[in-house]
């Protein structure tokens, strides 16, 4: 007997998980089919982690409207779902009269979009806000911020899960078939799933899924950006993200403080068609450093701790011009299918408003009954590192596992790792533990804790060493026992 759902969401990234969480407010049986082994292995976890102000997008666009909404609600959402978010502001730094004109236009556009807290600042204020920056003046966006993109996505997914949503990992949708009853049958390597509604929140796979639904003709390109992560040692030199003055489609290489105190440098923007290749070439690493050093001259090789890349799915027209978010139901072609195409930046900021917009389209076609048991609150893993000494002492008294530091760089304790291993979504990869705790994310990159974490994962989940995966399918960490 196949599982029968009211709604199946294809893709468990930040948008898919936001849709799942927002839909769980209603009396619906909901499932999420995710091709990866966790919720933020692609674009949702591979970005600058900036909560945008909403000034950079054309007035009247969905990007502008949903970004401003997302920015406005982020504080409450972070509190409700217990993920790290900081409204630290951000600056766009300029030097020339042309830059000044662009910034003035950006402020007018931002205000027309409903963004608040935008103003020009002179050199003195700029250097007071970010002493280490190079530039003559800037636009300050007070409402911009940063968050932990992993925790944010995981929080949405875990809250959805707690409200009854089923998550299926390693479930890549390979075909979609219309059923006689008007519903859909979705094929995956692990069987078929039926649903009355389908939501395409497939991110980089949005065109593939859209095509499967019969909504053809979208052109989606990948825009790949590489990043360098710097040691926390330099974190104090960057209290807020520093961007150059943008061109109309590209925000430019920037330096961003992370919520955990690191600095990230990037991204460049390269058009790609391979949406699975995340390699970072040497020339891009050097290019990032050289470009960003003009803004913030503190990028030393000795402070590199890692590099990564992400790919944004951009919907473009036949001339290659980047289009707005597309959120639609094409009743004549694919009724009961919500199609989200080209959800790129500012998708992280706008995820919940995107979800609500999508659900709005569903509500125009079907009455959704409130779920009286919906609980909007979710509690994350209590982290030892950020607490006061008194709170740390109390935690250890309650649970001695909080006294055992496993990851020395990020000061992650055994208690946190155990909670991450037994996470509500059932994710069982090393990267899953990393994203949930920050173990292995520090400057030694797991040199001290990787073996301990692996050992705990084996013991807690009863796995053999050769079964433990790093992140993706096939990413087996070990070959087995030595003897």
């Amino acid at each position: 007997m196949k599982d029968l759902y009211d709604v199946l969401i294809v893709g468990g990234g930040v948008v898919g998980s936001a849709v799942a969480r927002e839909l769980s407010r209603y009396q619906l049986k909901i499932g999420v089919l995710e091709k990866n082994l966790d919720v933020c292995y692609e674009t949702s976890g591979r970005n600058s982690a900036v909560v945008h102000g909403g000034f950079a997008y054309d007035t009247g666009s969905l990007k502008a409207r949903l970004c401003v909404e997302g920015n406005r609600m982020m504080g409450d959402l972070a509190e409700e779902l217990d993920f790290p978010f900081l409204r630290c502001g951000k600056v766009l730094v300029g030097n020339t009269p042309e830059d000044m004109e662009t910034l003035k236009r950006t402020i007018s556009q931002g205000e027309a979009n409903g963004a608040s807290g935008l103003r020009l600042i002179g050199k003195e204020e700029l250097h007071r806000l970010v002493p280490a920056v190079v530039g003559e003046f800037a636009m300050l966006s007070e409402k911009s911020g940063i968050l932990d993109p992993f925790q944010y996505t995981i929080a949405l997914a875990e809250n959805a899960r707690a409200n009854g949503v089923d998550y299926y990992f390693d479930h890549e949708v390979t075909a979609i078939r219309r059923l006689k009853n008007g519903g859909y049958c979705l094929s995956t390597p692990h069987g078929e799933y039926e649903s009355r509604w389908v939501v395409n929140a497939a991110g980089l796979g949005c065109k593939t899924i859209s095509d499967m639904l019969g909504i053809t003709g979208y052109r989606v390109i990948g825009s790949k950006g590489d990043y360098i992560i710097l040691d926390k040692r330099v974190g104090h030199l960057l209290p807020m993200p520093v961007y150059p003055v943008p061109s109309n489609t590209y925000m430019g290489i920037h330096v961003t403080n992370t919520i955990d105190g690191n600095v990230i440098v990037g991204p460049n923007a390269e058009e790609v068609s391979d949406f699975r290749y995340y390699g970072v070439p040497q020339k891009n690493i050097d290019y990032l450093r050289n470009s960003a050093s003009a803004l913030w001259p503190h990028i030393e090789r000795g402070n590199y701790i890692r590099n990564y890349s992400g790919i944004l799915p951009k919907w473009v027209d036949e001339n290659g011009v980047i289009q707005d978010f597309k959120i639609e139901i094409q009743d004549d072609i694919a009724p009961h299918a919500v199609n989200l195409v080209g959800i790129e930046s500012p998708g992280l900021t706008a995820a919940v408003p995107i979800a609500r917009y999508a659900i709005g389209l569903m509500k125009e076609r079907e009455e959704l009954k409130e779920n009286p048991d919906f609980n909007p609150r979710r509690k994350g893993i209590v982290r030892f590192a950020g607490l006061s000494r008194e709170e740390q002492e109390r935690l250890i008294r309650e649970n001695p596992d909080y006294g055992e530091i496993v990851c020395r760089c990020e000061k992650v304790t055994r208690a946190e790792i155990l909670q991450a291993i037994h996470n509500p979504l059932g994710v069982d990869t090393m990267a899953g533990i990393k994203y949930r705790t920050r173990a292995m994310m520090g400057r030694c990159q797991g040199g001290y804790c990787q073996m301990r974490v692996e050992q705990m994962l084996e013991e807690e989940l009863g796995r053999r060493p050769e079964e433990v995966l790093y992140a993706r399918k096939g990413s087996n960490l070990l070959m087995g026992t030595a003897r």
Partner: protein
Amino acid sequence: MEKRDVIVIGGGPAGLTAAVELYKKGVRDILILEREKHLGGILRQCIHDGFGLTRFHAALTGPEYAERFISQAEELGIPCETGTTVLDISPEKVVTAVSRRGLVQYRAGAVVLAMGCRERTRGALAIPGERPAGVFTAGVAQAYINLYNRMPARDAVILGSGDIGMIMARRLTLEGVRVQAVFEIQPYASGLPRNVEQCLNDYGIPLYLSHTVTEIHGDGRLTGVTVSQVDGQMRPVPGTEKYYACDTLILSVGLLPENELSMDAGVTLDGRTRGPVVDEYFQTDRKGIFAAGNVLHVHDLVDFVSLEAEKLADGAAGYVKEGSLPECPVEVREGAGISYTVPQRISGTRDVTLSMRVKKPFRSCRIVVRQDGREIASGKLARAIPAEMIHIPVRASEIAGTKPLSVSVEEPA
């Protein structure tokens, strides 16, 4: 807040030796804080032999070498908290530590920094390419095999000819792994010649100098690496790329003294050693905070770690008893051919031994210590290589006044 005359941070060879020697010199109120469940530090996973040839005139394994000090510390009854991680050292020498028993703060009369070093990672080198599973630092691979009984590889390539990398080439080979080659970006091996001989040559594992990994491939497990030759500036030479299919890349690309706690304490670090700047008593520029072993500068042999920690114990014991140590106004600077010297400051009133490394290999050369242009000490070497530390004694009677000393390599004209 508890008080201790000396808190030793780290129960590896440096910390253990320092604690034992301090005790022997009459300092009894000592506490060793060790984050692992057992004492011994990185020696625990070094099950090969060759330790102790200088210090004990015996070829010991790592655990055997450590055991000599652990059993002494136990016999002497030196208190030790294992499973205890130091979270912070304040400039006032308040040490905050955490364990399953709770959070404890100690006010220390003196602090011995003996935290050792960590391995440079792929991220720090920014090796281009994808990020599959199967890229391990040599120490992680060593820990998996020797401490956890886990096999990290079947078919490996090693980048970097550091000592742990070469030792792992042998270790993996003995465990049935195919080790295809070791690639070294420098035109010379970065580890000890004896390891090139015993770990690579004896097993027929080729060492390619002036080569580096220029791309990592694979999105699940590693599928291969691209290796390129490098030019004199260590830049990859286009057209020399060669693909090696393998499932594992082992990195042995350098060790970094682990000084995050030292920085919390306000200790000044030396940009070359990446360890604290110390005087001949192994005291940092924070009075009463001492450092020895790999946290100070990366050593070639553990024997020298022990010898250094013994000297530290001399200084620290004096500090505990007297409340201060004599000034060390004479700076020691590196001249031509020398990458660093330790200590960086000396009193000029006692005989000292300077430890140093050369920047590149030299054949038949002299290491010369000069003050104001005058030669005051020297050592003649048939061979000087960056892999081997060099020790040059300097007699106090030769030092005049407080003008800086300069150490350089002088080659025959």
